[in-house]
């Protein structure tokens, strides 16, 4: 893929010197491609002799497959192949592990046995000359199952639940001090249960895979948040050397976690393409996305909180009952924020997980953080009314210079400034603290706030930076841009080091053949890949300096290399700025098409002894109809401390996108399973509501924008997820402030308010 390079602007050479490219609110590098329809997503590659694949799914939620009646489908003209468990290629077992970059989304390979774990599970694939024929074939195939009793009701299955003993290596339950003792002795005690429903990611672009075999080599055009992980899993599972598999994911139309790992449809596409020796395209329907590409599981959170009369927390217990499938031990770790924001000497965080005949849950934007903060920040709001304290004051009372979890100082934390700036922008002081007192045009008005948080995460990442002989440059990395701005931010980092305009740099991402990068999840792309781009660019400049000082025709010949630096597209001698050489001249004279630097950057130990965590303060204003219970978020403000900002514009988009997704979580989103069949009833965008423009109010996002140099060389912490984390609680708190009604069950819909209004 080539991105269009804008012609350098007239005064660019002087600009390059003056402008700090990191942080500049640059437009998206891929904006024009996307708005003109030129950006090609996984299903957009027109290939000759394309075959269309449509998955065949199980109508039953549990049991086993007896057989597929395929005769009628096979007779349909244009049908090429019906892939079933009987003719499927045997898949090699792989290590299902994050650390080795071979993480599967569902811990089971498709069509290797006859077991059925959930309704909508793939039991085959119909491949045909056209999409319509493949759909018709899939419809004609009768799936005969032996149904068994399905586990579909969380409450009924509770006796068979398990208590996980760790979360990513952290032993569970998490215990500090003695909760029971402290709670019974404390002055103020509060207990409440908060519940959140199953939610689906529903990115705009459906999951899609186009599989193309070229001899022994396999190319997959795949919509994924992790090209390297997908390459490893597909290669290992099919028994291919990894260098023979290439994943291309130039553009991703949103992922939010559900495209983090390889789901079974990708392997079905690859297997079918292998059998037919033709390109095969599989695009999941919205309905198939409800069954088999993950979801956020429901939570039932029991919270007890003890406090002094002055509002100092003395004891917290947070017990979460959540759900997973019979295939994987997924944990929606809602207790995370409870452990890690406020200092409280006595704490107990525990979990209980129910297995259901649902597909495997997966990470969904701020997994654990946003569900857990809904509960914690709601209960703190309740406590603030009990104590007659301002909600912000209550929170300030319980902050600490050290992380409550690790008892280490923060690498860099500006949480207090978040509250301060946020309440100023939002106008928190104008709030009458008494509920049900503020009114506007016949509506009850409420103002609420909540703390936002997300841990600082980074992984090893690599990048290559090329300086080309025409004076332009390229950044290459096997990371991917989910629509977040990575194409743009990575070249801003390179521009800052190379000292050329970012308009002369092209980012090449989303291809597993580039230097490896981690999954674009856990808000870690900027912090993981960014430092590698910086280092690679430094290496490229260094290499260029080495050439110039060895080049007898250069005015920099034999000058000390430490006194040469890049400025304005040139190398400049520090002691005599008249001695300069333009990048392209050096390369041309030495007959070089380009020079490059490559860097693989691992997290170093500079953050050792510190806890890295991002925080924020979020505010919401709601209007509630006093008779009808209709709720609208009318204003939102979020101020985030996420380290250094790479691009003010894309960062703001990320933050407000997260906040609007938070409105969905607060007011709209809920996945419903049929209680008898286990099928997702809300498997379409008519029944599964997400906010529309009319629900998206004036949203303001601001950043503290102070670098966290202990965390990495750029001082960035990433902000993909923090924007959503406090919204549900801030909204619920605002609804309480407006109405005096506390809703502890998401989403907050008019029917839940009605009986109290």
């Amino acid at each position, binding site marked *: 893929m080539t991105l269009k390079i804008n012609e350098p602007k007239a005064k660019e050479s002087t600009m390059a010197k003056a402008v700090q490219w990191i942080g500049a609110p640059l437009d998206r590098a891929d904006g024009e491609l996307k708005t003109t329809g030129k950006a090609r997503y996984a299903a957009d590659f027109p290939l000759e002799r394309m075959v269309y694949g449509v998955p065949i799914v199980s109508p039953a939620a549990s049991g086993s497959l007896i057989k597929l009646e395929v005769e009628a489908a096979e007779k349909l003209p244009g049908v090429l192949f019906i892939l079933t468990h009987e003719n499927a290629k045997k898949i090699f077992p792989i290590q299902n592990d994050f650390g080795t970059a071979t993480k599967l989304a569902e811990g089971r390979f498709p069509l290797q046995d006859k077991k059925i774990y959930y309704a909508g599970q793939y039991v085959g694939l119909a491949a045909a000359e056209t999409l319509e024929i493949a759909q018709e074939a899939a419809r004609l195939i009768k799936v005969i199952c032996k149904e068994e009793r399905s586990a579909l009701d969380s409450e009924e299955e509770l006796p068979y639940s398990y208590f996980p003993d760790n979360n990513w290596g952290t032993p569970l339950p998490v215990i500090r001090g003695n909760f029971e003792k402290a709670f019974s002795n404390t002055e103020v005690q509060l207990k409440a249960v908060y519940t959140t429903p199953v939610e689906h990611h529903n990115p705009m672009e459906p999951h899609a895979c186009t599989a193309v075999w070229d001899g022994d080599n396999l190319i997959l055009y795949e919509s994924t948040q992790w090209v390297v992980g997908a390459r490893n899993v597909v290669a290992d599972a099919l028994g291919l050397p990894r260098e023979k598999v290439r994943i291309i994911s130039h553009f991703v139309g949103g992922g939010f976690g559900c495209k983090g790992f390889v789901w079974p449809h990708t392997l079905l596409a690859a297997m079918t393409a292998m059998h037919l020796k033709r390109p095969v395209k599989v695009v999941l329907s919205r309905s198939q996305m409800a069954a088999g590409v993950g979801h956020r599981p429901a939570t039932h959170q029991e919270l007890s909180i003890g406090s002094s009369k002055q509002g100092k927390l003395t004891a917290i217990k947070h017990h979460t009952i959540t759900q997973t499938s019979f295939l994987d031990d997924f944990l929606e770790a809602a207790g995370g924020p409870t452990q890690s924001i406020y200092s409280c000497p006595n704490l107990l965080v525990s979990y209980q997980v129910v297995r259901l005949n649902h597909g495997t849950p997966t990470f969904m934007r701020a997994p654990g953080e946003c569900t857990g903060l809904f509960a914690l920040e709601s209960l703190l709001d309740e406590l603030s009314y009990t104590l007659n304290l301002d909600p912000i004051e209550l929170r300030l009372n319980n902050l600490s210079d050290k992380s409550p979890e690790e008892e280490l100082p923060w690498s860099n934390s500006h949480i207090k400034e978040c509250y301060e700036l946020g309440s100023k922008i939002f106008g928190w002081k104008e709030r009458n603290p008494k509920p049900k007192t503020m009114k506007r045009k016949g509506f009850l008005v409420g103002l609420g706030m909540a703390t936002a948080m997300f841990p600082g995460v980074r992984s090893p990442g690599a990048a290559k930076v090329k300086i080309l002989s025409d004076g332009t440059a390229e950044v290459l990395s096997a990371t991917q841009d989910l629509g977040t701005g990575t194409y743009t931010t990575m070249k801003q980092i390179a521009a800052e080091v190379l000292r050329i305009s970012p308009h002369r740099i092209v980012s090449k991402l989303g291809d597993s053949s580039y230097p490896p990068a981690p999954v674009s999840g856990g808000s870690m792309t900027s912090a993981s890949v960014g430092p590698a781009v910086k280092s690679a660019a430094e290496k490229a400049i260094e290499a260029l300096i080495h050439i110039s000082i060895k080049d007898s025709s250069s005015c920099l010949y034999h000058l000390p290399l430490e006194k040469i630096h890049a400025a304005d597209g040139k190398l400049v001698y520090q002691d005599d700025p008249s001695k300069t050489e333009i990048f392209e001249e050096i390369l041309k004279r030495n007959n070089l098409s380009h020079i490059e630097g490559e860097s693989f950057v691992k997290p170093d130990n500079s953050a050792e002894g510190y806890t890295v965590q991002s925080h924020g303060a979020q505010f919401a204003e709601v209007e509630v109809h006093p008779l009808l219970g209709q709720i609208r978020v009318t204003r939102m403000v979020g101020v985030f401390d996420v380290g250094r900002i790479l691009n003010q514009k894309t960062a703001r988009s990320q933050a407000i996108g997260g906040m609007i997704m938070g409105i969905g979580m607060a007011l709209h989103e809920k996945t419903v399973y*049929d209680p008898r069949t286990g099928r997702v*009833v809300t498997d379409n965008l008519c029944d599964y509501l997400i906010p529309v423009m009319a629900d998206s109010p004036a949203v303001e996002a601001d950043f503290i924008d102070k670098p966290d140099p202990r965390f990495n060389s750029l001082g960035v912490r990433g902000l993909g997820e923090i924007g959503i984390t406090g919204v549900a609680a801030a909204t619920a708190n605002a609804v309480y402030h407006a109405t005096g009604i506390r809703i502890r069950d998401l989403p907050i819909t*008019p029917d839940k308010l009605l009986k109290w209004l």
Partner: protein
Amino acid sequence: MKPFRYHRIKTLQEASHLTQEPGAVILAGGTNLIDMMRLEIMNPAAVVDIQSLPLNQIETLPSGGFRIGSLVRNSDLAFHPSIQKEYPVLSQAILSGASPQIRNQATVGGNLMQRTRCTYFRDGISPCSKRNPGTGCSAEHGYHRSHAVLGISDSCSATHPSDMCVALAALDAQIVLEGKKEKRTVPITEFYLLPQNTPWKETALEPAEIITAVDLPELPEGTRTCYLKVRDRSSYEFALVSAAVVLEFNQNQIQKARIALGGIAVKPWRVPEAEKLLHHSTPSKKLFQTCAETALKGAKPKKDNEFKVELAKRVILHALSLASKTKKE
């Protein structure tokens, strides 16, 4: 989508003739039909495209009132100056439904004929007597939060999803049907059938008949109206409950009242018992409350949609109070 024959016709006779074929359907704006065909819920053998028929006029009737051609686009109707002036409740109802893109494409006739949004009807696999006669109703013991509580039967409780039709019901609109020997008009409330044991029979439309127009009777001077819709999000969403009210005023007295409900019944739902209470009355909150109670008397809610009864009462109460405050010039 399955293969089908496509006819683009030029005359009503042609359309009428072709729609007598078994499995033939009429295509107007297509916003609902194409959706249904893509979901393979409707698999017509033939699609008769009537878009070139001259049915896109809005005209005044000699007897007063208006005749709206069945191919008038929803947006054009909603923004028509006479409609906005004379029947604001109709404009409000149309503009509260769907999205601007859909309203630009959808026609009046198509809006009348749109199918339910019941998720079990639309999934293509669950038992559903409306889709596959005799298979039963999955919503009854399944998920039915959005389903009807009025006019339901054991075999179906799916709502009619239209907003426009709720306003039309409150306006006593007449549906003009042509194609058979006799051109006829049917009041909108009789155009839709109750599901009873035959939920697949949805309208009084007979083979060879085509909706050519909707007639709106003239409203007396001093009529006040309101369309009120409650839904889970602010736009682009079907009603949990909606109400269209038309109050004929004389000075400060209500002479006649018409109330139609949406989102809560199997068809655009009139409540004559409740309306009667308002005839020749002085508006008051207490009266409106009694009226709302009466309107919901026959409601048969289930587990997930119990709230709709209370919500509907409040919607009626609020719509009546809003309408009685709206002065018509």
